[in-house]
């Protein structure tokens, strides 16, 4: 006896649109069950997790700080995924962007003027793009699987940052802590509303990037190229579009946005480099991209939802005494249910009572 997925003749447009909400609802139900198994009141748990962080201004600023990198990265990933390029290494591109952007304030701390910050942002984007260019080059040149190469490069980037902050970039006056020197004021990404809270310009970059990429995807010939090559590669070739150039376009664009997110995080939220600068933004952004239906505007909303899981995780740790790994559990469930809903919208499950294995054809 086994299960088979059978493609549905037609898929429901209504449920396609509802899918992210269904996934969210299912996640909440399972979340309640998890709280119950931990001996916590499910109502209190969900309230602490998903409502409380939205009730205070400082907490909303935190939400914006967490959402900014998620949205920036996911917007770039949407271009990758739409064009059928599976960049799983945004986490590494985020780190490399942060490192490249930090060259100025760490290695040339005396270079202080109004050009520093714009240069840092540009260098961050270039760093992220260059790092994303590696899997793109390997894919187009040698036909390697970009999922594997981009993922493995994440660990290279993490180790590189670790080595930098413990070795050559360690602050000489930092009492041997593995931290770089603190960025000078010209190198710090300012707050959007300094009077109300700490949210930096990263969230503005994120929203602007989302709108620009949304416009490109839905209204320009470049976006058409992205979608054609992703949906029907052969039709794309017939149209005269180059799949190889698209690999580079998608990887470099998403790398640049991940790099921008990285340097914004370093220069905005942290203010220096340390061995670990990301709680997995690059991976969580994959969930954001799918929860947002690969639509940049949907991604803004999805980014806020996923940012809430980070905040909720912290809140649950503090007030309920649950491990902050609960945040990962929620994120994982969300992705699982989004993919599950999408699959069941296109396929139905059939039970087959047949012990004989099918022919391999």
């Amino acid at each position: 006896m086994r299960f088979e997925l059978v493609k549905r003749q037609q898929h429901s447009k209504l449920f396609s649109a509802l899918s992210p909400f269904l996934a969210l609802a299912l996640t909440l139900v399972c979340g309640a069950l998890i709280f119950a198994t931990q001996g916590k009141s499910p109502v209190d748990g969900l309230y602490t997790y998903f409502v409380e962080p939205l009730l205070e201004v400082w907490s909303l600023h935190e939400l914006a700080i967490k959402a900014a990198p998620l949205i920036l990265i996911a917007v770039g990933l949407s271009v990758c995924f739409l064009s059928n390029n599976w960049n799983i290494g945004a986490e590494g591109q985020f780190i490399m962007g942060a490192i490249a952007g930090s060259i100025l304030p760490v290695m040339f701390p005396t270079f202080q003027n109004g050009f520093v910050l714009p240069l840092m942002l540009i260098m961050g984007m270039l760093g992220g793009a260059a790092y994303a260019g590696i899997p793109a080059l390997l894919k187009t040149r040698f036909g390697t699987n970009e999922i594997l190469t981009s993922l493995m490069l994440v660990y290279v980037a993490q180790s590189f940052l670790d080595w930098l902050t413990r070795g050559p970039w360690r602050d000489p006056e930092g009492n041997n802590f593995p931290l770089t020197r603190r960025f000078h004021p010209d190198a710090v990404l300012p707050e959007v509303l300094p009077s109300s809270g700490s949210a930096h310009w990263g969230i503005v970059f994120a929203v602007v990037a989302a709108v620009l990429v949304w416009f490109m995807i839905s209204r320009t010939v470049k976006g058409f190229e992205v979608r054609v090559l992703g949906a029907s590669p052969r039709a794309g070739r017939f149209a005269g579009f180059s799949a190889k150039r698209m690999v580079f376009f998608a990887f470099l664009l998403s790398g640049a946005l991940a790099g921008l997110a990285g340097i914004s995080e370093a220069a905005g939220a942290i203010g220096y480099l340390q061995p670990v600068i990301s709680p997995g933004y690059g991976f969580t952004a994959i969930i954001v991209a799918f929860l947002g239906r690969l639509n940049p505007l949907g991604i803004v909303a999805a980014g806020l939802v996923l940012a809430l899981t980070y905040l909720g995780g912290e809140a649950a740790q503090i007030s309920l005494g649950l491990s902050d790994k609960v945040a990962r559990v929620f994120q994982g469930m969300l992705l699982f249910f989004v993919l599950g809903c999408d699959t069941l919208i296109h396929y139905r499950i059939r039970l087959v009572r047949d012990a004989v294995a099918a022919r391999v054809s």
Partner: protein
Amino acid sequence: MQPSADTFPALLETRGLTKVFGKLTACDAIDLTIGRGEIHALLGENGAGKSTLVKMLFGSLEPSAGAIMWAGQPVRIAAPSEARKLGIGMVFQHFSLFEALTAAENIALSLPERTPVSAIAEKARALSAAYGLPVDPSMLVGDLSVGERQRIEIIRCLLQEPQLIILDEPTSVLTPQEADRLFETLERLRGEGKSILYISHRLDEVKRLCDAATVLRHGKVVAHCRPREETAASLARMMVGNTVPAVTRDTLPIKPDAPALLEVRALSRPPATPFSIPLRDIALTVHGGEIVGIAGVAGNGQGELFEAVSGEALQVDAGTIRIRGKDAGRLSISGRRLLGAAFVPEERLGHGAAPAMRLSENLLLSRHRTDRRTFFGRLGVVFAGAVRKASQRVVEQMDVRKSAVDPEAAALSGGNLQKFIVGRELDRRPAVIVINQPTWGVDAGAAARIRQALVELARGGSAVLVISQDLDELFEIADFIAVMHDGRLSKPMPRGEATSEAIGLLMGGAEPGHAGHVGAAA
């Protein structure tokens, strides 16, 4: 001792086997009788219904009507596993083998029980020796030649001890030497009383190997015959039809001064994959006002030729393809379109059109470069209104029937989508159009509309190159007909001189020089 057909019922018999897909009757009341120890050929052009028939016999498709008799007993074959249980084995044209596994492991995968791989390798070795199928079961499939891979498929099939083996165009991927070895194996199997259903277009093979043949045309049986008693010419005639259809179009006087708009010179191309056909020294010229037709059995290099001419595959030497007098061999498909050429590929969904995209978006597919000014503003912003208007114009001109204002391409019927795809190109008034299987799987009304549009385009002075398996179609619209076989193109002959017999012979692989001497070739 071979049991004779008189004392025993035939091994497999179908009576009135019919399969209907919507409006199309793919197989119409097929009667087929395969005796024991017989190699039975199934002949027919592409689209004649051969694969539908075979799928019904192998349990992949359910017949709409009719009966299948196995050794005299009526049977219902609901799945390939049931066909195998009865004793029907099949060797597919395209193999389903994992390259990273050994031959023996691949065979093990298809067996129901968990038999140890070593035991299978032993059995495979024994079979391979007994039937002259040399292949080492411990080799990785990735390291094997195409012929050796086919042997694995055959061994895999033989392990299930079938009474009837269906071979789908087995020699299409083989070298002549490999094909010879295969024939020896098949003759040995026949000697043991096993029956073989042999699907092929290659008339010389069928004549040499097969005891009986059933010829299909447009889903119907047109003849049962004994290939050894026939000539290649008479077999070809059965396949492509007896009569040259009435010409429905005036022969235009070809203007001697009409410019050569499309020229192909000494075009050769190595095979890109194990399943593709190399192009060998192809030469062809299409003048303005002409329709040149390329006939040929599918898989003889037509797709490869289309890719080379359209620019989906580039040539080494720019001069091998010339469009309107300019070297185009190094130009991309967009570059060739900018020279005034238009292309319509064979596959509608996924090649000529993106299935999940709207019709208006599919209009952009082939015209985003040539009509850049009309459709895009600064920064490549799409003028949705202009695109919709052009798409509406195509819909009206070609009478495309659709259920919504701007539906997804996949929602259209084959005929209507093809009308849109052809109309999208004609709307540009191209100087050159290359079209592969213009009316494949299209209903009669849409086919007539498309052919009419091509004739009108040629009358307007454009060069039209039509690649088609449908000889009737070529006789209807082409001024010259050339035949493609095994990557070679015969010299185009004026339609007036072409007979279906001569074309059929060339399609079956006769040397171009012999085409005129049909009797001698047979």
